[in-house]
């Protein structure tokens, strides 16, 4: 069996923990509980008839005063870069997270989640210009979460 480590990267409170929880347990909680350290969750999936175990690293979000420990980056094949589509400052943080990931591993694959899409109006959604491998997700209503993870898995297995 193939095991791959992937990271959830993004500023704090953008919904990294919630995305993982929805992906694994199909549940959502409105209450914000700050993640500290790292929690690894396993998810089995079959991609193009290949069995793959994703080890999803949900880590403490980056805050202005605390960078994500680089030790967590070791051995990661890819990352899901998450921002809160309703908060501009977290969208602006995406570039830096991608930079950090690639600085550590140039081969790493990534997909981007514009999360909390349920908070956006139809008009706001239209004005977003999303590039390739970018998904408008919601951990609240579950939209685009499966495709987010499977796209990354496919990229990694390529």
């Amino acid at each position, binding site marked *: 069996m193939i095991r791959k480590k992937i990271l959830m990267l993004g500023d704090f409170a953008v919904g990294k923990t919630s995305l993982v929880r929805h992906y694994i347990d199909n549940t959502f909680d409105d209450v914000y509980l700050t993640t500290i350290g790292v929690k690894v969750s396993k998810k089995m999936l079959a991609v193009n008839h290949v069995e793959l175990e994703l080890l999803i690293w949900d880590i403490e979000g980056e*805050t202005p005063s605390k960078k994500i420990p680089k030790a967590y980056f070791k051995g990661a094949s890819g990352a899901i870069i998450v921002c809160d589509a309703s908060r501009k400052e977290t969208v602006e943080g995406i570039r830096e997270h991608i930079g950090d990931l690639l600085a550590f591993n140039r081969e790493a694959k990534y997909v981007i989640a514009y999360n909390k899409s349920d908070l956006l109006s139809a008009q706001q959604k239209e004005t977003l210009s999303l590039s390739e491998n970018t998904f408008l997700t919601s951990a609240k209503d579950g939209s685009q979460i499966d495709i987010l993870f499977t796209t990354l898995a496919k990229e990694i297995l390529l």
Partner: protein
Amino acid sequence: MRNVQIILNAILSKNIFEYILVDRKLHVISASQGVRKYVNAMPKEGDDVLEYLPELVGNEEEIKQIFVEKYCLYTLESVYKNNDYVNISVEYCDQNTAIILLHNITAITRAQQNLLQYSNESTLLYNTLQKVVDSQNTMLFVTNAEKIEFANKKFLNFFHAENIEEIQKKELKLYQKLDASLQNYRELFVSLKEGEKYLKLGKDIFIVQATQIEAAHTLFTLTKITDFPHEMQLDPLTGLYRKDYLNEMVEKSLQEKRNFALVVMDLDNFKQINDTYGHLTGDKVLKAFVMLLKQHIRKTDLLVRWGGDEFLLFLEDGSPENAILKIENIRKLIDEYHFETIDHLSCSFGLSYTKENDSVDSLLQRADKALYEAKIKGKNKVLFKEE
């Protein structure tokens, strides 16, 4: 060796450390009983340790390196395992064995988490509040010890600044634009206690208000007035209104048939002061004079500057006698005040009081005549003209 064992047992019995021994292939050799609570099952001999500790996936090569370099150590901090937080470290034991230590740090991590949660929630609240104030149509800024510490988007945009640091670099002295006699924001705040002021910035006029928020923080708001009755001009030197504003006030009061006094005042020998001490001193005298006067008139009175060293005062008062008494007090006050550089200054006053069929002009004319008489009768006098 015995001592080490005692210490080890003590540590293990406190549930602070658990261990798994693994071979060169990272297969389990044995494990301490307490490991179960972190990994949900008891690791059996021969199991792949990555089944229990998937946190190590991706780092297998680095960990195996321990057997080559012997003293090297692999660590991973603050890993959440089944409601506990552990630090995981892998150390060399002998050429066929490595020990994986699980160090329980739940207590301290929970404490850190509380702090982090508090700090993150504060940051989110701060961001939210920032958005709230940015959505306001009013320009606002907060000072702390004379430094502009916070400003909303409207304010930043108006002064072509991207952020608060750029505003700070500009060292905006808005109080000077409002009233040249003000030295700092503290004084502006104090002067605003007497009532809001108007500030002209470019083509726009703003109402300026201030609120003390905490001991250190003062909030200033600048609200744009869109339809102002007429192009209002403030005298930049003294911050006083100009005569047309007084005209308006007088006309309004006449229409409402209210009784009031109008005072024209002129500093005595001001030209000499300018000639002897220079115009800068002259300006300072004017400012000091205005400050002094403002301290002794009421909020409802209106003092305006009417060119050079002439001022007008609108005094709502029950009788001419009352008004005369007040002005006489002011005359004395100035006469006895020690002005910087010039020391002594006096002023002459001409007074008129409303009567039937009065207009702005008739009131002014009488006050002006009274002033003229005060001057020829030796200055430093208050005269009232009834007819």
